[in-house]
């Protein structure tokens, strides 16, 4: 008869970027059940909406998460613009697309570094982050901050990028592309990396769809769903396809994120070639009254902002549903059956962003 032991995979763990707790029931080093506990970094940011002016709340929405911060601010602006029926000018939409894709690239490169660190390949971790530094330099040059951009506002964007700067950005990205190919080629082909990733944590397509998984976790199991296809903020004029893989294991999730980096470079190039001249903001007058659902695609999946207002300058209710929260049931489903030493890598493959999950 096998004996069950319960091992806590604690809030503090060297491999986790943010605190998350699992009680793992193991039998002879094979995990049979995983029970999550969340709530270690809850800050009550949804309650703060009742005290802050709706225009000032953009700064709070950006600070919900440090990695996907621009897209949080962007989705909040989409929600308020939807209630007040404001349309930002086309140039603002294209600039928002460019910054979103830069944000996606830096998040995926950061994730590649964490995963390499999780299975002990520190050289690859440092090299992936070395390339990420160059992307952060581009972001700092255009917006002023490395991870908190501060460039989105209700009605448009706050800063403009001049035409020759835009072309310089595309040239730089093309110059870094061979370096990115070399580093991501190690993930794709190295035998020790494949030994850790291939065949572990398999999530079938039906399971992923029924449990409500989003983002690369869902796309790696074969379901083609990408919120950028909804067409917010100039994505309707850009030609791209959601990237899917069929296998559903950790290797497939890794490959989806790698191919999304190259797809982002292509999207930025298209946006820079199509961007029109013009103003970058529309004036906002009055207070919002009504409700709206805004959805966008973060690096980790689909984020939903529901905003409700009743005619004063403080919104009545703001509900944020982040992608990591939707991926936790899928994680609880794919943990049983793996070895104890695989648990850190599996938790990292859904790209947990815990400060987003518990705002």
């Amino acid at each position, binding site marked *: 008869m096998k004996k069950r032991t319960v091992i806590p995979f604690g809030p503090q763990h060297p491999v986790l970027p943010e605190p998350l707790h699992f009680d793992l029931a193991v039998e002879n080093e094979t995990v049979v059940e995983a029970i999550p506990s969340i709530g270690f970094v809850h800050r009550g940011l949804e309650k703060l909406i009742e005290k*802050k002016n709706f225009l000032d709340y953009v*700064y709070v929405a950006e600070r919900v998460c440090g990695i996907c911060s621009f897209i949080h601010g962007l989705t909040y602006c989409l929600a308020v613009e939807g209630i007040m029926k404001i349309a930002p000018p086309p140039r603002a939409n294209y600039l928002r697309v460019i910054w979103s894709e830069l944000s996606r690239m830096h998040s995926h490169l950061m994730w590649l570094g964490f995963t390499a660190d999780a299975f002990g390949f520190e*050289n*690859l971790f440092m090299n992936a982050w070395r390339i990420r530094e160059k992307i952060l330099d581009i972001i*700092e040059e255009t917006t*002023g901050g490395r991870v908190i951009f*501060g460039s989105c506002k209700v009605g448009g964007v706050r800063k403009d990028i001049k035409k020759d700067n835009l072309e310089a950005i595309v040239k730089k990205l093309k110059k870094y592309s061979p370096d990115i190919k070399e*580093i991501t*080629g190690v993930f794709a082909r190295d035998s020790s990396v494949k030994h850790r990733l291939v065949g572990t944590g398999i999530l079938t397509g039906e399971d992923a769809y029924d449990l409500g998984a989003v983002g690369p976790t869902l796309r790696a199991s074969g379901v083609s769903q990408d919120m950028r296809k909804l067409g917010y903020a100039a994505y309707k004029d850009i030609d791209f396809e959601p990237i899917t893989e069929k296998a559903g294991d950790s290797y497939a999730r890794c490959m989806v994120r790698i191919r999304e980096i190259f797809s982002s470079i292509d999207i930025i190039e298209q946006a820079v070639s199509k961007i029109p001249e013009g103003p970058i903001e529309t004036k906002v007058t009055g207070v919002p009254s009504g409700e709206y659902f805004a959805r966008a695609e973060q690096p980790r999946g689909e984020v939903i902002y529901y905003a409700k207002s009743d005619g004063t300058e403080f919104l009545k209710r703001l509900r944020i549903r982040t992608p990591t929260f939707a991926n936790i049931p899928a994680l609880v489903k794919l943990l049983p059956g793996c070895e104890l030493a695989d648990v850190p890598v599996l938790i990292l493959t859904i790209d947990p962003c815990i400060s987003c999950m518990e705002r």
Partner: protein
Amino acid sequence: MVRTAIKSLFGRPATRRYPFGPKRAYYKNTRGSIKIDITGCIFCGLCQKKCPTGAITVTKEEKKWQIDRLRCIICGYCVEVCPKKCLKMEPDYTGPSTGGREDTYRRA
């Protein structure tokens, strides 16, 4: 990755050797800290109204402008709304401190 590994083994380090070498020059747009030209200030209080964190305090009678450096999130909202354009965003960040850090500027 052998090519990158050999290049990093025999090439220059990827990091800067600060403080034994120079700092990287800041970009023009880098958000570091807020600077005021107190001779142009009319103490209207717009920056205090618009600051999202409440870091700025303006007293019109004493002609005093105060900023709490540790509360400021360097968003640049005050720079945008100042009617006299006497607030500027500088690329140098506020250094560390062991207590609070409130800077006061008075017009003589």
